[in-house]
């Protein structure tokens, strides 16, 4: 028996007829509300990871500064930072623009993992980013570490919104062997766009007609598949927009990265069942005139991530979300002739959130023991991934990373 196209339209979201379209029940209807799962469970199934990629190679030495080290100041006569206002311990200071991160650190919500890198570092932006995103410094991989996670761990479930990239192009990290991960640039794009120059009544009529023409049909396998997907998408989009309307940020977000994180907070608050979010901020390739642009970038990163946590905390879901921040490489110890820095190696990573055990992790690389002018990494970045996979996403990290790495204690 065929469901009438027109009848289906009349059905409200929660009605029984949605159930009658079986596998197309929008994901958010089938999942538990976040609040239903005890936040104390360290490997709850609804834990969320947000990855913030700092593109261009972040100068780790001017981010977490070895401010007590003379070699640092001698190597960076012009761009070296002397401001000791944000000390993390006796020897390390945060870049003075990162007051928001110092606050998180003091609250025990920010883990700083020093000296992250990998063997035989590659100084190509492209290749090194690929290494970080595929978690494989040796072989070329076409799918990413988070893609592996999705393939291994989420197989068989409705993957439609299991991960969302905020941006225009999907990073390799999220490339799966299975269903592609959607990229959303703006919620406005995720839905039927209204034609310009038409009145509101016609917009509504148009949306209704598009839904009607896509109501579930079963004449052919292709039409059945498409109309189910379309019904799901239109309902999901409408739901996301409804949630967007309800969402009120509890803090003011900065522009740029802040807006990406605001969108992610919106989606998280909408309880879509999404486990992974990914976003990016560029501009870290500071070959010349590094200051003050680099400090400004770091300030934006810190204030954006801090705003994100505050917003989530106000909504009582900050314990469900961990943010991981990385860049493809750090920069050389010695500043260059243009008052900038060239491509280098190891740098700190940041992991933050209500469930994170804040503090300093990993040994800070020695500035006295360099490898051709570059820092020697002290922590393989894949240990950070393994920690998040094991302790936060309840995944077998050895299966996902195709290699075994010892988890750390920051979660």
């Amino acid at each position, binding site marked *: 028996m065929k469901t009438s196209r027109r009848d289906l339209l009349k059905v409200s979201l929660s009605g029984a007829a949605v159930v009658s379209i079986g596998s197309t029940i929008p994901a958010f209807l089938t999942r538990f509300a976040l609040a239903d799962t005890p936040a104390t469970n360290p490997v709850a199934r609804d834990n969320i990871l947000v990855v913030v990629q700092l593109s261009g190679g972040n100068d780790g030495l001017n981010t977490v500064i070895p401010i007590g080290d003379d070699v640092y100041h001698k190597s960076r006569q012009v761009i070296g930072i002397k401001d000791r206002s944000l000390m993390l311990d006796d020897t390390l200071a945060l870049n003075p623009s990162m007051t928001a991160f110092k606050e998180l650190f003091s609250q025990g919500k920010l883990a700083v993992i020093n000296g992250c890198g990998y063997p035989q570092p590659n100084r190509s932006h492209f290749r090194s980013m690929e290494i970080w995103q595929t978690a494989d410094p040796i072989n070329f991989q076409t799918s990413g570490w988070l893609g592996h996670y999705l393939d291994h761990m989420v197989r068989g479930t409705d993957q439609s919104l299991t991960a969302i990239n905020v941006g225009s192009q999907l990073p390799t990290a999220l490339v799966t062997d299975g269903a592609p991960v959607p990229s*959303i640039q703006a919620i406005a794009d995720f839905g039927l766009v209204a034609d*310009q120059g038409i009145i509101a009544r016609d917009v509504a009529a148009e949306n209704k007609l598009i839904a009607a023409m896509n109501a579930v049909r079963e004449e052919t396998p292709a039409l059945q598949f498409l109309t189910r997907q379309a019904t799901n998408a239109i309902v999901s989009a409408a739901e996301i927009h409804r949630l967007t309307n309800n969402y009120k940020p509890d803090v003011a977000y900065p522009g740029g990265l802040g807006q990406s994180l605001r969108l992610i907070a919106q989606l998280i608050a909408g309880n879509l069942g999404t486990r992974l979010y990914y976003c990016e901020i560029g501009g870290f390739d500071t070959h010349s005139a590094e200051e003050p642009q680099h400090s400004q970038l770091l300030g934006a990163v810190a204030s954006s991530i801090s705003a994100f946590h505050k917003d989530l905390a106000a909504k009582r879901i900050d314990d469900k979300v961990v943010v991981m921040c990385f860049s493809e490489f750090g920069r050389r110890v010695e500043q260059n002739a243009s008052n900038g820095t060239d491509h280098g190696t190891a740098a700190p990573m940041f992991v933050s959130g209500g469930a994170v055990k804040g503090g300093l992790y990993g040994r800070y690389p020695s500035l006295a023991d360099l490898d051709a002018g570059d820092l020697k990494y002290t922590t393989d970045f894949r240990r950070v991934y393994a920690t998040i996979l094991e302790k936060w996403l309840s995944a077998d990290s050895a299966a996902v990373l195709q290699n075994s790495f010892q988890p750390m204690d920051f979660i």
Partner: protein
Amino acid sequence: MANDFLTPPENPFAPFVPAAASPWDKRWASHLLRRAALGPTSAMVDKLTALSPAKAVDALLDYNPANDPFSAELDSLADFLTLSNADQVQQWWYHRMLNTTQPAQERIALYWHNHFATSASKVMDGKMLAGQIDLFRQKGLGSFRELLKSVTKDPAMLVWLDGQTNRKGKPNENYGREVMELFTLGIGHYTEQDVKEIARAFTGWQATSAGVALNPSQFDADDKTVFGVTGPLDADGAIDLILQQPAAAEHLSQKLLRAFVHPNPTQLHIDYYASRLLEHDWEIKPVLKEMLTSRLFFSDWAYRSKIKSPVELVVGAVLAMGGRAGTEFVRQQANRMGQTLLYPPNVKGWDGEQAWINSNTLLLRFNLGQRLATPSSEYITKPDLETAIKTRGAQTADEVINCLVDLFLDGRLDAQSRTDLADFMYIGPDGKTTTFAYNHNTYTTKVRPVIHMLMATPEYQLA
């Protein structure tokens, strides 16, 4: 009674003969243009419907590969295009697709780009990739054997599957494995030992700035044993040996059927076209012509059975609307919908069909009509559909709908949707039914939304 949409036709391999119940018309010409070219335009539909089905297929596939209408233009653009940049190679390819007089040639190149999926993510050099795509344009309808031998020594492929580092005494098995697993036989039709041995046959081929050549000192001339045959196999010999395997013709037959006819061909269909490939000694064109003129191809079962790739969707829409759009706009639309040309996700190529569709990509596809029909303040050329409708003399709501359904949906849309669309056009600003007359104002307020709606139908997503 059998459902024609779910069951392949009887006597599937006989040539399609138009009849009263299934005339040679807009529907079938558009179907052919979607599968064998880049989509229907009214001019192409008119041209093909004036011919017989077989002559229409000839008209598409009998292009002269040596005649590249773009080579002079490419030279003239030398100062503007940087082909080492893969993004610009993408734009150049879109430019060709939107302007070519030989759309089947680009279609065939797209097919092989997916078959021999090579990505700029590793090859890096856009020029190498542009060269590989040109190889597909040149040899794509010739002998599969020759094509495969050329691809084996293609610079981009040598980089992509590590032929560059496949040397005597230090074999790299990447190409040896993929050439059997993905390009010719399929998994299960060779052993791990065959992979090890055949990799040695491909040693020594290296791409340098001077071109591709066999470096004799890096070629392993010793005996190899592949498929139980022992000898001092070289690259061409290895290809010949692979193509002697019974699985080879079946593998290619299935891939051709999936790409050009139906996502789920039956074993009967696969076996038949496998035998035709062998009969024609691996010549692609005669086999493809047989396929594209068959009752199988012109069947309800095959019609709208496939899901358009993003490239097919976007390029097809622009062509249907008159062919003018900025290549950067076209490129970005397709990329966002999940198909970045020259960046296939892996050596398997794009999975295609249902894998194109998720909530986000489907909504992006649904909004394509809105984006194309909306004039933009950006420096983007957009199709001028307003004039196109005017030149067709459409005045009433029904005439405008007919015109657009002809352009986008082979003239086929159910009566209920037609009524709903017309009702939409008749509703005035006060919510009351009024009259409709086509003019600049109603184009903006009523016709543009109808274009958006027609391109957001499930049928429009289908090839």
